[in-house]
């Protein structure tokens, strides 16, 4: 058991995420079909596709907010299965940023950032607050630490959400349409933070429609439609020379 836990399925390669033949159904509806995906450490991946194509479901499977029914998911050499210990470990390892921010409205910005480090990582409060301040400075809102999320703008809230995830010191960050609920003026401030993060070598999976962002930071772009990965390529080839008709159609509509 412990051996299975520490041995990745394909040894040798330094993979952060390995998804093999993964399927998922919602009732009768087959949302994800035979997904195979390898993400190397420090790799930045953008996932795009029409709405309802399963892209959010895919990244939500990676920290078990959704449960996959067939196939294997390995995160940093730990298999994601029903074992609660594994889920716990993997969730500590992966940070997630949501479309709707999902900050805790009854806690201040500082308390939002310290909650998990104190209760999950058992850090002393002082240390947790120092870490939180460090990340709040990085997302450029240290002066809002004592405010409640409801008193901040959408862009500020999303930056707090990013800082909150970073406080857990994750190896991998998942972004689920992080700018889709924001006013155009605020999108840039969030993307800037994400670009910084990418430049520092964070392993990132990002579901987004911000193609400009994809072009600047992505190592690889994945295009999905109706639950399948249709095409994956480096951003330059993806945008200039898409292979499938479905990708061409999609790009012609959004660019």
């Amino acid at each position, binding site marked *: 058991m412990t051996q299975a836990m520490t041995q990745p399925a394909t040894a040798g390669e330094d993979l952060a995420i390995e998804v093999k033949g993964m399927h998922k159904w919602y009732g009768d509806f087959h949302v994800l079909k035979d997904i195979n995906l390898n993400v190397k450490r420090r790799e930045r991946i953008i996932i795009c596709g029409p709405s309802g194509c399963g892209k959010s479901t895919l990244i939500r499977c990676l920290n078990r907010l959704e449960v996959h029914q067939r196939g294997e998911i390995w995160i940093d050499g730990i298999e994601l299965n029903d074992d609660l210990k594994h889920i716990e470990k993997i*969730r500590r390892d992966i940070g997630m940023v949501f479309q709707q921010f999902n900050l805790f409205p009854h806690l201040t910005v500082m308390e939002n950032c310290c909650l998990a480090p104190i209760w999950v990582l058992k850090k002393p409060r002082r240390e947790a607050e120092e870490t939180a301040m460090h990340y709040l400075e990085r997302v450029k809102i240290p002066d809002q630490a004592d405010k409640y999320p409801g008193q901040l703008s959408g862009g500020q809230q999303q930056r707090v959400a990013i800082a909150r995830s970073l406080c*857990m010191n994750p190896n991998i960050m998942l972004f689920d349409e992080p700018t889709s609920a924001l006013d155009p003026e605020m999108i840039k401030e969030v993307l800037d933070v994400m670009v910084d993060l990418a430049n520092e070598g964070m392993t990132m999976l990002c579901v987004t429609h911000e193609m400009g962002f994809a072009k600047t930071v992505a190592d690889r772009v994945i295009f999905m439609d109706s639950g399948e990965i249709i095409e994956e390529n480096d951003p330059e080839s993806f945008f200039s020379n898409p292979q499938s008709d479905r990708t061409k159609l999609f790009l012609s509509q959004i660019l």
Partner: protein
Amino acid sequence: MSVHTPHPDLPPPSTSVGIIGWARKNLFSSPLNSVLTLGALYLVVRFLPPVINWAILDANWAGSTRDACTDGGACWVFVKVRLTQFMFGFYPADQYWRVILAFGLLGVLIAWLLIEKTPKKSWVAAFTILVYPIIAFVLFYGGLGLPVVETNKWGGLMLTLILATIGMFFALPFGIILALGRRSSMPIPRALSVVFIELWRGVPLITVLFMSSVMLPLFMPEDLRIDKLVRALVGISLFQSAYMAEVIRGGLQALPKGQSEAADALGLSYWQAMFLVILPQALKTVIPGIVNTFIELFKDTTLVLIIGLMDLLSIVQSAFADPKWLGFSVEGYVFAGLVYWIFCFSMSRYSQHLERKLHTGHKR
């Protein structure tokens, strides 16, 4: 390129502020509203003075027998003479200090917990939950050198408060557990919670009390006699916890799913997520519902009358039968009503204060 300079803020039109603005907006905003305002004014002028005359100006306060009541107004002498009985029931007069001490201590503890910025709140809370009940039991019932006072001597406001406090003390945590059980994905806790809630909600409280006092002893072994007050308390607590569970479930359902997903994604365990993220928000949303249930519980304690417990209302009623004081039931009911109103209204005001205090969004 022209530079845009924002216009300065102008003061609001004078008709929309001040007394005139207020009256226009709140009292005379439409013909119907004006008619209602004038009608209400007429009713106040017509009926308020007689009530004030009866209750205060023409009322009789001095004396100790009914002969003192000559002024035609309310005869508060009746209430005055009977006051200790209304408060303590048939508790021995030389032991009243025990009841006063127990409630006084509870008052201090609750004030300590409710008033902001008092030190060591968590210690006081632990003391209130773990140690105070023992102290209260010894004071009310006896033991440790204090003479025993049987529960059938307890009565009046004291009994009402004991029933209400203990009922609330158990109904809230039971309600939370039942609500979580009903929303659980595990089938057995869910089924048990649903059955429990639907069973208790489907039965009137009066039936529950009747069952607990009449039916239950028939099924119990002869030598096992559970005190009538304890049976009533168990009945009230279980009954109200079913209602409380549904109120709290409403709060849990109103919470966006993203909150528990965020807690999961951060690696919090189920119970951590519940106590740190979900319940604080869910309970805050349903403060009006929780207090509503508390107020209902407080007033429902009057139903213990039918199993022969002498709470405030029933002891006031029993005083009407005193041949020396026939014909003063209005004063008695007004007094009892006023006491209930003071407690319920205080709870209501505190809940409004709490809602304002816990509001963390944009202030409007």
